[in-house]
């Protein structure tokens, strides 16, 4: 025994000897003579001094050295400091089982014994569950021993397995012995109690899982909030990048001397690009008549030289519950007639009967500018990158460059603002004599339909009208004859039935054009010849919307129906109808979204083949104070839908 250690801690030793002395006196003074542990524990003095001694870490170590009790026994310390003593730490680490930290022991929810939030009965302890399970286990062992254990069929209720052992339905039926029957009764009651316990425990477990789901939901919400924040920051940075790029273009333009070589190179590249593009067009388009115009290059220059392709992709909408409202805000004072946007949470352009066209930042729900120039309300519009074309009731179409709006948006000077207007407006197309009701542009090719019963094709660069097609005349010229259609008189009256637009919708792709007119007929045109190549007849009311891709054409009409046509055969693939006239429609591979002047958007999930609706009329159905306005127009991209309502509200939804 080395005492050197001890002498270092004479104080501890003093403590210790005190403890020993008290122990001795406690034992001696006990009435029984010999000390039992109980006497020791009951003696206050002993307890105090002993715990003082033991609490002291050094004397603790001393004691430990002397103990030769079982390997598993730790010194009975009350509060020993783990980290200071290597010896103990080592010992603790070598422990072969898990233990809980003191913090974990403190983290115990209160009221765990009271009924759970769902109020599903009493709470049983796990041990009760264990005890209730034991008889069944014994039962099973018995059965295995008897070789009776047949793989139980869940559909078939094995009555003998439910009843306690020794009891069968047959025995109950034939029993004459009241004592036996009461025995049966007792054992069945007992089993019933056990089942009740196990049921309660299982139900409780469900509650616990619900609780976990709730917690996960909360976690999801906070992370969702993070994604939202990141995406907003991303958007801001993207905009700054864009700003820098346009600034660089500007500087290059102002000081050509410095960047001469650079520009030279750029131009060369651009020439090559043009060549590339035109050769692409040659192969892509059937006749390759659509030449790329150098002037349009200038218009699109901003978007061509500045890669406006976003580096990052907004995806926040995919984490919303489908059908949930992302944002809604008051945009106009009157009915919203049309809208379009570039990317989810990006830029949106809206038009309304209040004669304004507004540009919006969707991520903030703020108006970032006005497109002023039309003398009447805009009926239709389309947005592609930074270019917007609007078609108005004043019979004109206008081409706008949104990037100009952005660049000079900070100018405070009134003159500057005027200039800005001029810069933003690239072109005005003025040949129609009545209101423009439909338009579509693809690449440099703009096609518009008007109430003057003509379709006009425009060159986006020059603003020149390339051709004018009189719909009625062209239709009668068409080789495809149709009895109903030859009867022109009847036909005209059909066109005039109600206030519907003569040309309700159109879409072009290279030389292909599809129009939907008030007579309910879909016409497919060849823009090179200006002739109708096919008519799709089926709708019984004015057409209001259409869209096609490489395989199919989907149309919506005032006759309340949606029809899907096979572009190859011209036959109908599918059709369905809603309760009210369709006003707008858009589809992608996943879904068709249309509006029909009701308070919800109608969505057809093409993959799940499921119809559902989304909108304020549904989400706020229970809110009696809230009167949802009818939805006039909707557009969607990548699960992000924007709808415009009759009261000038805009709503964005995850679908």
């Amino acid at each position, binding site marked *: 025994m080395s005492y050197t250690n001890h002498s270092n801690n004479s104080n501890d030793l003093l403590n210790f000897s005190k403890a020993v002395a008290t122990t001795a006196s406690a034992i001696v003074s006990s009435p029984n003579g010999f000390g039992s542990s109980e006497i020791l524990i009951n003696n206050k003095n002993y307890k105090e001094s002993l715990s003082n001694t033991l609490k002291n870490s050094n004397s603790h170590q001393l004691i430990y050295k002397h103990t030769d009790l079982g390997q598993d026994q730790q010194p009975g310390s009350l509060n020993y400091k783990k980290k200071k003593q290597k010896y103990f730490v080592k010992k603790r680490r070598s422990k072969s089982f898990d233990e*809980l930290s003191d913090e*974990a022991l403190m*983290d115990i929810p209160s009221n765990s*014994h009271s009924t759970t939030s769902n109020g599903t009965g009493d709470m049983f302890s*796990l041990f009760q569950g264990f005890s209730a399970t034991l008889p069944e286990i014994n039962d099973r062992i018995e059965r295995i021993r008897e070789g009776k254990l047949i793989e139980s069929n869940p559909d078939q209720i094995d009555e003998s397995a439910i009843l306690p052992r020794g009891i069968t339905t047959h025995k109950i039926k034939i029993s004459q012995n009241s004592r036996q029957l009461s025995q049966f009764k007792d054992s069945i009651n007992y089993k019933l109690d056990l089942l009740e316990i196990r049921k309660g425990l299982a139900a409780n477990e469900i509650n616990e899982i619900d609780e976990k789901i709730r917690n996960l939901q909360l976690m999801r919400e906070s992370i969702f909030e993070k994604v939202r924040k990141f995406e907003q920051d991303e958007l801001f940075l993207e905009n700054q990048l864009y700003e820098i790029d346009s600034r660089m273009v500007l500087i290059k333009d102002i000081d050509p001397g410095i960047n001469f070589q650079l520009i030279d190179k750029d131009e060369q590249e651009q020439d090559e690009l043009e060549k590339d593009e035109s050769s692409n067009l040659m192969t892509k388009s059937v006749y390759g008549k659509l030449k790329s115009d150098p002037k349009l290059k200038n218009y699109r220059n901003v978007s061509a030289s500045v890669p406006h392709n976003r580096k990052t992709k907004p995806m926040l909408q995919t984490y919303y519950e489908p059908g949930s409202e992302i944002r809604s805000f008051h945009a106009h004072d009157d009915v919203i007639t049309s809208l379009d946007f570039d990317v989810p949470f990006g830029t949106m352009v809206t038009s309304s009967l209040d004669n304004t066209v507004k540009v919006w930042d969707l991520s903030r729900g703020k108006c970032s500018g006005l497109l002023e120039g039309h003398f009447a309300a805009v009926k239709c519009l389309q947005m592609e990158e930074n270019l917007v074309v609007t078609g108005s009731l004043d019979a004109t179409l206008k081409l706008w460059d949104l990037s100009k709006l952005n660049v000079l948006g900070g100018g405070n000077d009134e003159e500057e603002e005027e200039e800005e207007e001029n810069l933003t407006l690239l072109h005005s197309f003025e040949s129609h004599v009545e209101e423009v009701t439909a338009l579509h542009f693809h690449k440099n090719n703009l096609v518009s339909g008007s109430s003057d019963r003509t379709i006009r094709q425009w060159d986006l660069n020059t603003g020149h009208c390339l051709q004018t097609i009189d719909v009625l005349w062209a239709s009668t010229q068409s080789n495809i004859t149709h009895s109903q259609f030859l009867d022109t008189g009847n036909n005209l009256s059909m066109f005039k039935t109600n206030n519907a637009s003569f040309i309700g919708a159109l879409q072009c792709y290279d030389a292909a054009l599809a129009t939907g007119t008030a007579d309910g007929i879909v016409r497919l045109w060849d823009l090179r010849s200006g002739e109708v190549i096919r008519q799709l007849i089926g709708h019984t009311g004015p057409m209001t919307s259409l869209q096609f891709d490489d395989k199919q054409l989907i149309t919506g009409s005032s006759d309340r129906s949606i029809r899907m046509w096979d572009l190859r055969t011209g036959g109908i693939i599918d059709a369905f109808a809603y309760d009210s006239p369709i006003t707008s429609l858009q589809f992608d591979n996943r879904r068709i979204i249309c509006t029909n002047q009701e308070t919800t958007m109608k969505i057809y999930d093409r993959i799940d083949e499921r119809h559902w609706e989304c909108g304020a009329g549904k989400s706020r159905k229970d809110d009696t104070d809230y009167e949802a306005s009818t939805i006039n127009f909707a557009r969607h991209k990548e699960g992000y839908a924007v709808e415009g309502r009759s009261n000038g509200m805009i709503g964005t939804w995850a679908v």
Partner: protein
Amino acid sequence: MAKLSYLPALEDANAPLSDKQLEILEEQVESEMPNPSIQSQFNYAWGLIKCSSKKQNKKGIDLLVDIFKNCPQRRRECLYYLSVGCLKINDLSEAKRYIDALVNHEPDNLQAAQLQRVVEDKIAKGKYQICSKYIYDLGI
């Protein structure tokens, strides 16, 4: 429903199950993998605690600690089971830590108080033995 006591008596931990029974309990947990129900886990854990082998007991404690971590509503009773388990493998300090925590949260729990007494008693006995050994070493 008062037929089954809410918490096990200490003696219950010393009555081992048959191998067959334990096997069935283990099978039950395995059949529910990867997300075994708390009850099945506990059944197996308690079965292990009841075993006479210390190795099995420790495994049972590990499982109980898991339940404690995963299921906040069961923490209080788990403290009791843990304490019994630790007492059984003679880890008195752990047993005391657990039972003290339980008694702190539930001062009215008679069974917990009883277990606390048992644990303290055992510790005191141990200390007494240490002391007498020390006294003996010092040659007093």
